[in-house]
């Protein structure tokens, strides 16, 4: 139950967050509201304001519905696997459902824009715009030096573990350093070179562009430091589990809060910097944005483009690679609940312990551990399971399998039922240790008798 509560409490805030992001779309920034470019005069237009209010109400009702559904799922008396599947389905609904009122409001606003004669000429809507003065400015430093420190910090834990002989755990901790390198690559690859052109005002364009570029760099740099802290936290978990978990949670929390703050802060700056825009000549690229969400411009050679507001990025669906990325992301998102199905399969499968053709075999779901009998140097039956912590593998209510650290025994390979003993400790001639048990205690006792 504790695991389920933690799982749901870690994610229930997604619904209100998406609600506030959607509500924020109704505030004019860069002459945009709900993905539609409108002139300054539209900000006082009764019909526009009515559409925006209706959109806000719909998103609010949706948010409350999703929160209620989440709380019901949290309280359902189901296993962890079923709860995880419901959780992943709920996350998908949180992502997809708010997009429906958004697309409908976007369509209604576009229709109103057409009726009011606010649409510019076709060539202006489909053409490209560039601010020569801002494009001539140098994009700033893209060096690696700022990322070097988090990289070095994230390399300390794996280096120490590898020197201590904990090679497997050291290699796992190397993921932190790999992520820092990945973040730097992402920062460079999707750098915000494109200026944020809103209208003829080059100073405004330069200011908007500067804001986006600065926070783009800061975001990846903060992510790198968070990854270094995560690496340190995971390393500390071996020695001080509580302190280690606290560091991991603090790093994840800090990064999450900072990311949300950056997104809303940039939106706020965009709103303030373009408060007086939308008169005279201004940029309108609505025809390139399907439902105001998906970028499609066959005349644009770029694959990665800026989202229209905030700090995010998106792909150009007119490019083959862009369509590939979008489809891959959609498939991953839609396939997420399958993870829950897999977990259900894992937790419903029993751990089986048996002696087969001169081998001691522990099997669970797709995993199988075989120990030739002639290699067994020692074996003991434990009535109490020692405290174990996972290095790599699976840890569920009904099964623990993979590489574990066992208090008083060192590193062991485990395949056991943690709920009910006894447990078998098997030591091979070359010093490997196994901690095993079957879901059915009688099976464990029978194998122990046969081994004796």
């Amino acid at each position: 139950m504790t695991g389920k509560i933690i799982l749901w409490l870690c994610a229930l805030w997604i619904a209100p967050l998406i609600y506030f992001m959607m509500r924020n779309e109704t505030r004019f920034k860069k002459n945009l509201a709900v993905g539609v470019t409108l002139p300054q005069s539209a900000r006082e237009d009764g019909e526009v304001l009515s559409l925006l209010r209706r959109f806000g109400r719909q998103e609010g009702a949706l948010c409350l519905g999703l929160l209620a559904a989440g709380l019901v799922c949290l309280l359902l008396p189901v296993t962890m696997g079923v709860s995880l599947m419901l959780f992943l389905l709920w996350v998908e609904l949180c992502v997809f459902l708010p997009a429906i009122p958004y697309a409908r409001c976007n369509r209604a606003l576009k229709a109103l824009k057409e009726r009011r004669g606010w649409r510019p000429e076709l060539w202006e809507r489909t053409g490209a715009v560039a601010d020569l003065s801002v494009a001539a400015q140098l994009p700033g430093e893209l060096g690696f030096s700022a990322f070097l420190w988090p990289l070095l910090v994230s390399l300390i834990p794996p280096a120490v573990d590898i020197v201590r002989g904990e090679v497997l755990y050291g290699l796992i901790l190397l993921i932190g350093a790999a992520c820092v390198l990945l973040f730097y690559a992402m920062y460079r690859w999707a750098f915000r070179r494109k200026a944020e052109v809103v209208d003829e005002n080059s100073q405004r364009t330069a200011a908007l562009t500067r804001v986006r570029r600065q926070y783009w760099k800061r975001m990846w740099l903060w992510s790198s430091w968070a990854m270094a802290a995560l690496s340190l936290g995971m390393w500390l978990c071996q020695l001080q589990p509580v302190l280690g978990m606290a560091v991991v949670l603090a790093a994840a929390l800090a990064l999450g809060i900072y990311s949300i703050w950056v997104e809303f802060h940039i939106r706020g700056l965009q709103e303030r910097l373009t408060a007086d825009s939308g008169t005279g000549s201004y940029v309108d690229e609505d025809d390139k944005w399907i439902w105001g969400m998906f970028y499609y411009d066959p005349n644009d050679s770029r694959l990665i483009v800026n989202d229209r507001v905030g700090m995010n990025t998106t792909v150009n669906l007119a490019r083959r690679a862009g369509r590939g990325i979008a489809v891959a992301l959609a498939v991953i998102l839609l396939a997420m609940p399958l993870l829950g199905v897999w977990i259900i399969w894992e937790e419903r499968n029993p751990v089986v312990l048996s002696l087969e053709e001169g081998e001691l075999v522990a099997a669970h779901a797709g995993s199988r551990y075989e120990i030739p009998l002639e290699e067994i140097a020692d074996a003991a039956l434990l009535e109490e399971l020692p405290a174990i912590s996972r290095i790599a593998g699976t840890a569920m209510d009904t099964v623990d399998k993979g590489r574990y650290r066992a208090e008083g025994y060192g590193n062991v390979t485990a395949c056991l039922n943690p709920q009910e003993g006894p447990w078998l400790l098997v030591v091979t001639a070359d010093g490997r240790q196994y901690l095993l048990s079957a879901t059915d205690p009688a099976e464990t006792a029978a194998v122990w008798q046969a081994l004796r």
Partner: protein
Amino acid sequence: MLLRLDFSSDVPIYQQIRNQIVLGIADGRLAPGERLPTIRALAEESGINMMTVSKAYQLLKQEGYIHTDRRSGATVCRREGHAAPDAATLAGLRLRLSELRLAGLSREEALVLCGELYDEGGER
């Protein structure tokens, strides 16, 4: 200065870039000595091919509107003194004046219109 490219136009993109930069220089939006974006930066900014931007810059350089340098990139040239219009400009002007005559404008009306446009500094 905003560069607006029309992909549905019959005028090639490199020509549109060239024309708008010339208009920008004429009406003062691009000052002499002002730095222009590099070929790569302008291509990335507008989402068009680098070769297209390169072609426009080469044309502008040939016509003496911009100066290119390996270190500082492209800059707007200072245009001092009178330069006689070239044959292509004269041919274009002759064609436009003929069109005005066919549209029914008198000599005086056409000259007044030309004077107004000249005073605008080339603004569209």
